[in-house]
C-alpha cells in the first residue's frame, strides 16, 4: 500500500460513512398530520455496528425507508460519502422485516438475484452466491425452495442475498422480529460473526433491547411519536462477542440503563394506542 492511500484509509476510518442530518418526515397535512421522524441526527463510522431502538410507532421503519432511498419526500439530509442520496444508493444493502425471499426462486437463485441484475456471468454468480450461503450457514440447502425452509432460514437467505451485493452499509429493519427468542440469539451470533469477518458497517433498526445490546457498538434510543433521538449509548462490551454475553453483569447494566429510557417511551406509546382504542369503542 502506498503512503497516500494508507493515509486516505486512515482519514476515511475516522470520517463517518453514513450521516443522518436533521431528517424530518411528516405524514399527512393539517390537524391529522403525524410527525414520524423529528429532526433525527446521528452518524455511522466505517465498520461500526449501530442500532436504532425505540417503541413501536416511533418512526423507525420510516427512517429505514428514508435511509434506504425508498422514501423520497423528507427534509434534512441522508449523506453517504458526503453526498446526499437520491433513491436507493448502491452502497446500501437492505434487509426487510417482512418475509422477502422470492417464493419462485431456489435458495441459490434468491441469493444470486442482485448479481443477476448486475449482469454478472453465471458461473461467477453461482460461486459468489455459494460463498454467502455458506457464510449464513445454509450450505446444502442451495436447491431448496423457500417454502421448504423455516422462517429463520428464510431470513438468513434474505441476509445472504443482501450481503452478496457487497454493500458498504448493511441496513436491517427488525430482521428477526418474526422469530422466536432462541433463533434470534443464534442468528445474532451469526450476524456478529459475519460482521467481524467482513468488517461490515451495519445499521440495525430494532425494538428488541437484548438484541441491540448484544450486537451493537452504539445504540441510538428514540422517543415515541414524534420520533426524536433521546440518547446515544456506547456499548463497551468486549469483542469478539457471542450470545453468552447476555449473561454478563455489564450486559445487564446496559439493558437496565437503556430500559429506563425506553420504558417511559414505550408506556407513552401504550397509553396512546389504548386511548385510540377507547375512542374507537366510544364512536363505534
Amino acid at each position, binding site marked *: 500500500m502506498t503512503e497516500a492511500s494508507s493515509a486516505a484509509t486512515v482519514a476515511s476510518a475516522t470520517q463517518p460513512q453514513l450521516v443522518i442530518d436533521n431528517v424530518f418526515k411528516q405524514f399527512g397535512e393539517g390537524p391529522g398530520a403525524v410527525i414520524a421522524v423529528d429532526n433525527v441526527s446521528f452518524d455511522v463510522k466505517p465498520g461500526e455496528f449501530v442500532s436504532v431502538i425505540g417503541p413501536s410507532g416511533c418512526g423507525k421503519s420510516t427512517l429505514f425507508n428514508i435511509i434506504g432511498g*425508498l422514501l423520497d419526500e423528507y427534509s434534512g439530509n441522508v449523506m453517504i460519502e458526503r453526498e446526499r442520496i437520491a433513491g*436507493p444508493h448502491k452502497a446500501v444493502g437492505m434487509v*426487510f422485516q417482512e418475509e422477502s425471499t422470492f*417464493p*419462485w426462486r431456489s435458495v441459490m437463485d434468491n441469493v444470486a438475484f*442482485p448479481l443477476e*441484475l448486475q449482469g454478472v456471468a453465471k458461473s461467477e454468480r453461482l460461486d459468489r452466491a455459494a460463498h454467502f450461503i455458506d457464510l449464513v450457514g445454509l450450505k446444502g440447502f442451495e436447491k431448496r*425452495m423457500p*417454502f421448504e425452509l423455516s422462517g429463520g432460514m428464510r431470513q438468513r437467505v434474505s441476509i445472504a442475498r443482501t450481503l452478496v451485493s457487497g454493500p458498504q452499509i448493511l441496513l436491517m429493519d427488525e430482521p428477526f422480529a418474526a422469530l422466536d427468542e432462541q433463533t434470534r440469539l443464534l442468528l445474532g451470533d451469526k450476524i456478529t460473526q459475519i460482521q467481524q469477518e467482513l468488517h461490515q458497517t451495519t445499521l440495525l433498526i430494532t425494538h428488541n433491547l437484548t438484541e441491540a445490546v448484544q450486537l451493537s457498538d452504539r445504540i441510538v434510543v428514540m422517543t415515541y411519536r414524534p420520533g426524536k433521538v433521546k440518547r446515544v449509548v456506547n456499548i463497551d462490551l468486549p469483542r469478539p462477542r457471542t450470545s453468552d454475553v447476555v449473561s454478563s453483569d455489564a450486559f445487564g447494566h446496559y439493558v437496565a440503563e437503556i430500559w429506563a429510557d425506553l420504558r417511559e417511551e414505550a408506556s407513552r406509546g401504550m397509553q396512546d394506542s389504548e386511548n385510540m382504542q377507547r375512542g374507537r369503542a366510544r364512536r363505534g
Partner: protein
Amino acid sequence: MAASGEIRTATMGFRAKPNSMARQTNIIRIAIVLIIAVSWEALSRSGLVFKDVVPSLFSIGAAIGKLLTLPAFYANLQVTAWEIFLSLAIGSSLGIFVGILLGSNRFMSFAYEHYVYYLAPTPRIIFFPVMIMWFGVGIASKIALGALSCFFTVALSTAGGMREIDKVLIRVGKSFRATPMQMGLKIYLPAMRVPVLNGIRLGFGTATVTCLLAETKLSNQGLGYMIMQIYSRFDMPSLYGLLIIVFVVAGIGNLILGKVTGTSA
C-alpha cells in the same frame, strides 16, 4: 404468506398426495363410471323409455367408431380447435394487457373495473348476432365471440394477481436498483404467474363453451355444427357419441394446458 402459499399448492399439486389415497380415489372414480354405464344400459334395455332417447351403449360405441373414421369429423375438429386456439390467444393477450393496466393504475381500476365486473358474467352468446353482422357466419364471428368471453376472465384474474403481489418483493427489487425492465421480467411476471395462468385456463373453458355454442347457433362447419346436423337427423347414438368425443377432447385440451402452464387442476 399468501404468495408463497399459492406457489406451494401450484408446484406440489397432486404429487404430495399419499399413494393409498390416490388408489382409493381411482377405485371410486371407476366405480362411479361403471354404475352410470350399467344403469344406462339397463334403462335402455328395460323398454321403459323411448329406445331412441336412451340408445344402448353398444350402439353408441359403434357410432363413436364410425365417427372416428369420417374425414368430415377431423375437418370439423380442426376448425373448432383453430377457433378455440385463436380465441384464447387474442382474448388472453388483450386480457393480460388490460389486467395489468387495471391492476397497476388506481385511476384506471376506479374508472373501468366496475364495468369489467358487471360485464364478466353476462352470457356472451347474446353478442353473437352482432358478431355475425361484423364478422360474417364463418369462423371469424366465433373467434371474436370466444376471444370476448375469455378476455374478461383473464383480465380480472390478471388485475387481481397484480394487486396481490407482495409489496415487500417490489421494495426488494427497488433496493437492489432493478431497472423497470428487470422489475417487470424478474419480479412482476413471476409473482403474477399463478393467477395469470389460472385465468388463461379458465379462459380456455369459457372460450370452448362459447365457440361450440356459437357453432350450434349459426355456422357451416365445426363440431357444434356437426352436433346440430346429427341432431336434425335424429341419429341419437351418433349424437351421444359425438358429445362424448367433445368431452374427451376438451378434457385433453385442458390437461395439456395444465401441463404446459404447470398449474395442476
